[in-house]
């Protein structure tokens, strides 16, 4: 579970809003301040933000492309940030890096070392994860890779993997995870995965090569620079609320989970409602934004209906 401070536009969050958010985390008894972007390290006050989180006793997790400036590199190399600042470095295959990106990323990985987990977002059918073995070995990174899938953003137009592509990706991925596992590297899965991407006869590989594979969908809560909150990035176009209208994280999750589980249970594929793994809550059927996108295409009033029901079910309607 995570709770993220996300900047998805060119807007930069103010230190005042950072403090409001940290106060919210403290009230929620939530231990981590997770910084996402865009790229959080390009915020001109990035080091101040990290300091504020550390002073409030939070563990910091920075989701980053690792193209750090010298100033950020020096800051993150300091002893005082070592214990409680961790990184998820979203990495591309070498063929998809430009200019001197490889040199810059490797400089950052040298600073991050064991505080760093590599993250790899699958956005196309053909990919090869084997390059992470060398990076993990050379820079003594955490021996796991966080895997994300490119999902639709409900209500917006973006490039994402189509349902049919997921099945081919599942097989390719398992082949590569077996090689990673032989190198003592395990996979961790971000949300949006579905069990039926993989053949049942290969579920053993999922068990062996991953850190607790799960195909669940939850409200993780993202917060934007203006303190607008939403259930997760793929649902960032829906159910936007003001963070300051909620006392703590539990209250905010309760708001979203008053109704969203009804949709989650339906899964994202045509077969999900009849699937034994769905019925037994072993799989949420992939990213809910896939399903919501279909509802929005068929029913022009979907967003308004959803908002009205969430308000009513959570007891917040006027």
């Amino acid at each position, binding site marked *: 579970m995570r709770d993220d401070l996300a900047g998805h536009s060119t807007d930069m969050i103010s230190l005042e809003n950072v403090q409001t958010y940290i106060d919210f985390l403290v009230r929620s008894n939530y231990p981590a301040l997770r910084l996402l972007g865009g790229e959080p390290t390009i915020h001109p006050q990035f080091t101040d933000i990290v300091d504020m989180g550390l002073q409030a006793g939070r563990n910091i997790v920075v989701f980053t492309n690792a193209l750090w400036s010298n100033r950020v590199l020096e800051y993150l190399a300091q002893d005082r940030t070592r214990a409680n600042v961790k990184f998820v470095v979203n990495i591309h295959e070498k063929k998809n890096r430009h200019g001197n990106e490889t040199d810059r990323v490797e400089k950052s990985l040298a600073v991050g070392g064991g505080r760093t987990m590599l993250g790899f977002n699958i956005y196309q059918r053909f990919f090869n994860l084997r390059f992470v073995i060398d990076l993990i070995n050379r820079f003594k990174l955490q021996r796991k890779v966080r895997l994300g899938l490119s999902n639709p953003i409900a209500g917006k137009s973006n490039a994402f993997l189509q349902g049919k592509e997921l099945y081919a990706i599942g097989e390719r991925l398992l082949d590569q995870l077996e090689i990673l596992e032989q190198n003592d590297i395990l996979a961790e899965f971000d949300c949006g995965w579905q069990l039926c991407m993989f053949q049942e006869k290969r579920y053993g590989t999922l068990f062996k090569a991953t850190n607790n594979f799960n195909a669940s969908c939850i409200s993780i809560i993202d917060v934007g620079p203006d303190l607008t909150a939403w259930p997760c990035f793929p649902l960032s176009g829906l159910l936007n609320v003001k963070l300051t209208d909620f006392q703590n994280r539990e209250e905010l999750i309760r708001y979203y989970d008053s109704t969203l589980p009804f*949709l989650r249970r339906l899964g994202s594929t045509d077969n999900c409602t009849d699937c034994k793994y769905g019925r037994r809550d072993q799989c949420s059927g992939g990213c809910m934004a896939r399903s919501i996108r*279909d509802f929005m295409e*068929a029913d022009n009033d979907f967003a308004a209906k959803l908002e009205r029901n969430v308000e009513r*079910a959570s007891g917040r309607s006027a």
Partner: protein
Amino acid sequence: MAYRSNDDITWKHQGKEMLLVNLANGAYFKLDAPSAIIWSGLMDGQSNAEIVEVIKDTFNTQGADVAGDVKCQIGAMLKENIIREV
């Protein structure tokens, strides 16, 4: 007679079929292909007679009481409170 969906009902296509869900309580309904045509027709404001014609054009309905089936299906939707008369 015209109909519209209950305010809490939303829907999506699943191939030729349709999945309806009640956002107030999570109940969902799967409509087969003919029922999906009835649903789409009602949402588009078509009359029963127009819907019957679409079904006849789409399926082999020889010998079937299509008008009776459509009326019966609309009655069931009213009973389930997924549509209402307007």
